[in-house]
């Protein structure tokens, strides 16, 4: 068992090392320790508590025994349909920032550059939040990090339009990408960031994305994660977020397709009076599996967090929600709320939920609720009695179920895209 485990990891390391060049922006010590962690722990399988419902090891064993390096062969014609009209569109292909495909626009207070262009002080920020020792997939990304985007909003700047980063994978043989991003929002700055994930190639991809996000004092970062990677894509997305005093972090995640999608969303509420809102909607069909894993770490008093995740599982698909609210000893006056609601559409589909509370402070208000069920038969009857066919009535009810989350999108073109794909998936 142990021998097998390490062969999978070793095989992966070997394959990746064959192609890997020197990663100039990542400190050598970080790379060495990341590889050491990977070698000693191996990639997680379902015996690993955090990956109980998401067996990464078996995916690597079955689909990614042999991986090749894929270079960017995309043209702007490939990218155009992925763009959002009212946003600044940036493109990352197979984990590397492509300046040629990205839109160029000069906006006051906004810095966008590739990780290789970082100054030495900026380099130190990398890996300051996403630690290799906490997760083997962070370690994998750190060891073979792609040349991703450094995204910075300087203090006191409000960026008037949303920024849209398109992560697109494309290749002709099975491959692995390790896209990386660092987002730094200065004090009292505000921005809306959309991150979209696509796979437009003809072969399978294991996409292992890590994003570190820092929200400065009194700042506001609103993020949208849009995932529509298709059935050839297996992806792990890790967001490691640190929120400062008086600031606000919001993330809405929409997962519309992907063979395996694992979202690790870890938020540190590291100072007083800050808040975090995480929302998510997924719809799965076929044999897809979506696993939303969140951790809200309340470190200081007077913070607030909210989570709302909804999912619809069809066919033989699996939907998982694992949310943890962690309230530390000093974090008095914490308000934390978590809710997960799911609908099962087929007898072969599975929903797993694990809402956790770990609380070490007494003056707190924490609660979670989760429910899983079917479409309300009475509501269905009501609609049918009014001459709406069963199929349409069901769709209407499912739309109503999801609407609350779709309405959270404030970028019109994105909302339209989500709505369109959601209706198609029904």
């Amino acid at each position, binding site marked *: 068992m142990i021998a097998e485990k390490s062969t999978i990891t070793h095989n992966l390391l070997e394959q990746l090392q064959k192609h890997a060049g020197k990663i100039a922006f990542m400190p050598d010590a970080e790379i060495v320790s990341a590889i050491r962690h990977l070698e000693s722990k191996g990639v997680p399988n379902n015996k690993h508590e955090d990956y109980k419902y998401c067996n990464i090891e078996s995916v690597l064993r079955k689909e990614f025994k042999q991986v090749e390096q894929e270079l960017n062969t995309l043209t702007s014609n490939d990218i155009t349909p992925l763009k959002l009209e009212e946003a600044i569109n940036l493109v990352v292909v197979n984990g590397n920032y492509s300046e040629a495909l990205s839109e160029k626009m000069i906006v006051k207070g906004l810095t966008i550059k590739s990780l290789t262009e970082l100054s030495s002080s900026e380099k130190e920020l990398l890996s300051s939040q996403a630690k290799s020792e906490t997760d083997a997939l962070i370690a994998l990304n750190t060891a073979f990090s792609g040349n991703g985007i450094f995204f910075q909003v300087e203090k006191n700047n409000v960026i008037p339009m949303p920024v849209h980063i398109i992560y697109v994978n494309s290749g002709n043989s099975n491959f692995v990408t390790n896209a990386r991003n660092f987002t730094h929002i200065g004090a009292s700055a505000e921005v809306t960031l959309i991150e979209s994930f696509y796979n437009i190639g003809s072969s399978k991809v294991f996409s292992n994305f890590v994003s570190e996000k820092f929200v400065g004092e009194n700042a506001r970062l609103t993020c949208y994660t849009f995932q529509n990677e298709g059935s050839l894509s297996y992806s792990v997305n890790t967001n490691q977020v640190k929120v400062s005093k008086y600031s606000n972090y919001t993330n809405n995640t929409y997962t519309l397709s992907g063979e395996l999608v694992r979202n690790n969303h870890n938020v540190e509420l590291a100072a007083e009076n800050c808040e975090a809102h995480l929302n998510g909607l997924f719809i799965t069909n076929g044999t897809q599996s979506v696993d939303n894993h969140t951790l809200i770490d309340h470190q200081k008093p007077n913070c607030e967090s909210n989570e709302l995740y909804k999912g619809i599982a069809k066919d033989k698909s699996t939907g998982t929600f694992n949310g943890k609210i962690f309230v530390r000893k000093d974090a008095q006056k914490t308000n934390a709320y978590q809710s997960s609601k799911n609908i099962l559409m087929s*007898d*072969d589909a*599975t929903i*797993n939920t694990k809402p*956790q*509370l770990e609380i070490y402070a007494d003056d707190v208000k924490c609660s979670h609720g*989760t429910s*899983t069920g*079917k479409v309300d038969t009475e509501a269905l009857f009501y609609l049918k009695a009014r001459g709406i066919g069963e199929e349409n009535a069901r769709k209407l009810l499912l739309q109503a179920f999801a609407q609350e989350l779709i309405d959270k999108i404030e970028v019109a073109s994105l909302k339209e895209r989500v709505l369109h794909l959601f209706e198609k998936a029904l």
Partner: protein
Amino acid sequence: MANEILEEHIQNEYKWGFTTDIDADEAPKGLNEDIIRFISAKKNEPEWMLEFRLKAYRNWQNMTEPHWAHVSYAKPNFQDIIYYSAPKPKKELASLDEVDPELLKTFEKLGISIDEQKRLTGVQSNIAVDIVFDSVSVKTTFKETLAEKGIIFCSFSEAVQDHPDLVKKYMGMVVPPTDNFYAALNSAVFTDGSFCYIPKGVRSPMELSTYFRINASGTGQFERTLIIADEDAFVSYLEGCTAPQRDENQLHAAVVEIITHKNAEVKYSTVQNWYPGDKNGKGGIFNFVTKRGICLEDNSKISWTQVETGSAVTWKYPSVILKGNNSVGEFYSVALTNNYQQADTGTKMIHIGKNTRSTIISKGISAGFSNNSYRGLVQIKKGASNARNFSQCDSLLMGDKCGAHTFPYIEIKDKTAVVEHEATTSKIGEDQLFYCKQRGIDNEKAIGLIVNGYCKEVLNKLPMEFAVEAQKLLAISLEGSVG
């Protein structure tokens, strides 16, 4: 103010901490096949029983201790435990008069009567009691009354001798010896316990009860309870336990199995009050228990109610496998931890049959430096159509040095299932206290009142005699522990 009261009451001593000076027949310390043969020979067991033990022991040797629970403790040294300790009988007992007077005194102090006569004077009401002292069952009351109805209620050792067919058929059915580390250990070295069989169509006329007491130092207690309710039968079963105050950590690893046939119902209530250790967290019982029931056939019901106030470390998940169609599983729990106690407790509801229903109500109260976790699994298997589950786990925190946690796992594979789970964490509100105090109820009583109100849903499920005891226990264990 509140802290002073907390201080004062945290000092509250464990009232059952005395030891009884009684001659005991003990096995040498340590565990190996010879010890198992020794226990088996002591009990004059048939060959198949010894085989069962040895098989479990060989399995156990290849198993590792579980570490997933949210508790931390020094690993018990399994070679430093006495696996068999029995009060030495002066001679063969014919009547109660011949029971060691020391032993009688012990149970008098505990408020448990093994004297059936006392029933008339109303000291102990209508309950048949099986008493397990250290490793062996010393006395089962009302045996004859029960036998008239065809109910078998005796110690496990007697059952092995007198009803080998039943034991052979049902033992290990719900908790196989390979189930987990402590169940395997128990299967290898269990010394006694209670056995209960309710025949077809019989409603037990009285509550059946087992009382466990660890007395000797350095011993572990490993008992096994097996309850079988045949078609249309009903029984309500109670379990209580205490242990003397000692500096060492003693191990208690029990196995309880319940099997219900068609239309049968078993209600199992526990008031667990093992010695929790002193206020610095020294000593106390490690309570690692595997309790599981199976609703084998249609329309049957198993209900677990537990009040957990004792033990230094608790690791316990009374579960129900809902195999029969229309079967019902219930779990009602109050877990209270104070000082340095740690509890990781909850339940598993496995829905296999159609139209199965389960309810989980868990109330956790943490005070002092303790940690209290709810860990539960609700699993709806494919084909368990119209399964229904409702879970509610509430936590009450008293003071800012304790922790309250919930780890619910919910796995659903059937589209017609409806599963709901909710959890909250809070503390006793200043306004609630103020309201009571304004009406002339002192702080002390107000807290008792509020906590009892908080636990009411669970306490209501206890049989009357136990409910009173449980309320008192709660009051003693946490009076004033409010921040």
